[in-house]
């Protein structure tokens, strides 16, 4: 079955993941060259619906769409009809009636993008739903790892911080697991979801132990806006125990890379110097790969749509 939507990593097969990454690699090279534009999505209408504030992800999707020649429209949903009491499904049906080809959706509730995808007949791309999934983030992380480590399997990868509230962690855990890596989750018990051990990862509460001999250190943002009270005693205690600094990083492999999905809280989960260290940090490259991965994902979804439409005619 070919992908019609990209709602999460969970439904993907490893070969789907590899296909997206291979195409993204091609777009990454193209983006670095002089000719960045192509016409893969010429004539397509892409609508970015963000029910939750985002600058970085929205910009990345917008640039990706424009580089592929799509007509891109941004809708700040918080300021619009939702305020007037319209439900998610009605908003979706309204937009659907305008015949878009691609909806890029971010929503504060888990499962909301799945629900929306059931109600429209265009491709839907999940740009983050609640704490559930953020598939393009996991794909861009995977591409970044593959480019700097030369492979995406049999690596030791530590994901550190607020696992419970992080869709990035969930998508990464699933993707990296599917690609056969060893994953460690590092963080305080209060920020671990229930029975997370059942997902095939090792859980560490001591960061130095958790970082021992890893190839990749993936830091997560401490989602302060999600904290409805008292998961950690204080920011400074958190930084002391779980903030990434040179000392803690020295337990990882000497060539370990440091990643962060952004935006960073310097001095809360990561030391500023580490974040800026070009020999260790690939944080800027992650942003760069974000555009390439999104171009690849949208390109593949559109091709599959066209193919399905052609087959339907036959």
């Amino acid at each position, binding site marked *: 079955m070919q992908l019609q939507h990209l709602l999460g990593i*969970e439904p993907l097969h490893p070969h789907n993941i590899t296909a997206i990454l291979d195409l993204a690699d091609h777009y990454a090279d193209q983006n670095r060259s002089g000719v960045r534009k192509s016409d893969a999505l010429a004539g397509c209408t892409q609508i970015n619906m963000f029910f939750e504030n985002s600058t970085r992800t929205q910009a990345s999707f917008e640039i990706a769409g424009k580089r592929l020649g799509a007509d891109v429209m941004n809708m700040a949903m918080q300021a619009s009809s939702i305020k007037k009491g319209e*439900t*998610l*499904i009605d908003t979706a049906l309204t937009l659907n009636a305008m015949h878009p080809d691609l909806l890029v959706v971010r*929503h504060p*509730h*888990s*499962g*909301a993008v*799945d*629900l929306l995808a059931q109600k429209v007949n265009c491709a839907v791309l999940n740009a983050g739903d*609640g*704490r*559930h*999934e953020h598939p393009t983030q996991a794909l861009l992380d995977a591409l970044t790892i593959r480019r700097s480590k030369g492979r995406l399997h049999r690596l030791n990868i530590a994901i550190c911080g607020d696992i419970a509230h992080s*869709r990035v962690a*969930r998508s990464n855990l699933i993707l990296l697991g599917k690609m056969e890596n060893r994953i460690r989750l590092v963080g305080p018990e209060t920020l671990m*979801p*229930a*029975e*997370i051990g*059942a*997902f095939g990862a090792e859980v560490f509460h001591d960061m130095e132990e958790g970082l021992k001999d890893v190839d990749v250190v993936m830091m997560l943002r401490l989602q302060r806006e999600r904290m*409805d009270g008292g998961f950690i005693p204080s920011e400074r205690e958190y930084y002391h125990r779980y903030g990434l600094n040179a000392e803690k990083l020295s337990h990882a492999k000497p060539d370990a890379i440091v990643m962060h999905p952004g935006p960073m809280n310097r001095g809360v989960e990561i030391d500023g110097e580490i974040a800026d260290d070009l020999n260790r940090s690939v944080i800027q490259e992650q942003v760069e790969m974000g555009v390439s991965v999104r171009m690849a994902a949208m390109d593949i979804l559109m091709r599959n749509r066209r193919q399905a439409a052609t087959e339907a005619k036959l």
Partner: protein
Amino acid sequence: MTSLRITNVHLVDPEHQTVEFGNLSIKNGRIAADDPALPSFDGQRKYLAPGIVDMGAKVCEPGERHKESFRSAGLSAAAGGVTTLVTRPDTDPAIDSPETLEFASRRAQATCAVRSYQMAALTKGRLGKEMTEIGFLQDAGAIAFSDCDAVITNTKVLSRALTYARQLGALIIGHPQDPGLSEGAAATSGKFATLRAIPAVSPMAERLGLERDLAMVEMTGAKYHADQLSTALALPSLERAKRQGLDVTAGVSIHHLTLNELDVADYRSFFKVKPPLRSEEDRLAMISALASGLIDIISSMHTPQDEESKRLPYEQAASGAVALETLLPAALRLYHAEHLDLPQLFRALSLNPSRRLGLDSGRLSLGAPADLILFDPDVPFVLDRFSLQSKSKNTPFDGQRLQGRVLATFVGGQEVYAR
């Protein structure tokens, strides 16, 4: 025609735990000694059982009649074999004064096809601050008192309400749930909730709530029924309280007996109920507790919701499911799976709730009200939610294969439903 003789039936008797083939005579609305002279009604070798006494269905009058009225609930109950409908006070406004109670009972009397009794709130507005006029409400016909899913957090308020209720012999129905732990939760914590990233509550919250309530019952001597237990963790507490001789009973909803958390699958909001669906181990523990008699009562926890309240992302969607018409077919799954036999099933559906509420139905004995259902436990069908009589169609059993349905329902010997 309140006098007739139902012939040629298997009589399911929950009081004596028997199923016998025979006839049953009704005179003046009550079960009478067998009299071949009465006009006969051929039961076609199907099963006759005491009608279901459903404790705690929600009828949305006053406030949200578009979701369910006494008329639609009555039709739904009759079609589902529920002959006594005990309604919850969690309406809008809450049934917390003799005036609102009188309104609800008047609507019930005028339009409901089956017997209906009303519960009243234990505290004003179900806010957990001041007790309602328990005495006046009892005089006006309140059959039990409950704040439903609004747990009274202030134990001083609760202890006084329980003490006052005890003095009047009123039955209190509690919702065992720790309000702190369960705040904002829409699933049971565990692997599934983590995978779907739904805010979740530990099953321990139910035990915490139950333990607290049982301690308060021990302190005040009140007559207490836990509306729905759903976790294995809570059962030892219940068992201890019963062994101790407290006046305590417990119920379980049909959904927690027949569904588990995995049924939510891809965020299907019709499976969002309160408390949330539990693990399969919990479901099996509930069934064993029901078979052993530790859990006394099965209830529908009928909660109508309109399409708009359910057409939302899972976390935002309203909780609850309609169940009056699916209660019996779903409960028969336990019979077909050989977890319980028919007399055991009707002990929990009819006899026990009737006894707990101080009614005299739920039995096939001489003199009992002729509230009866004729049903075929084996007939298979696929449920179409739009075929339901209820105004709301939010059933988790839509499209599912069920086995067994009601053929006729009698209230006081009067046929109120025939298929």
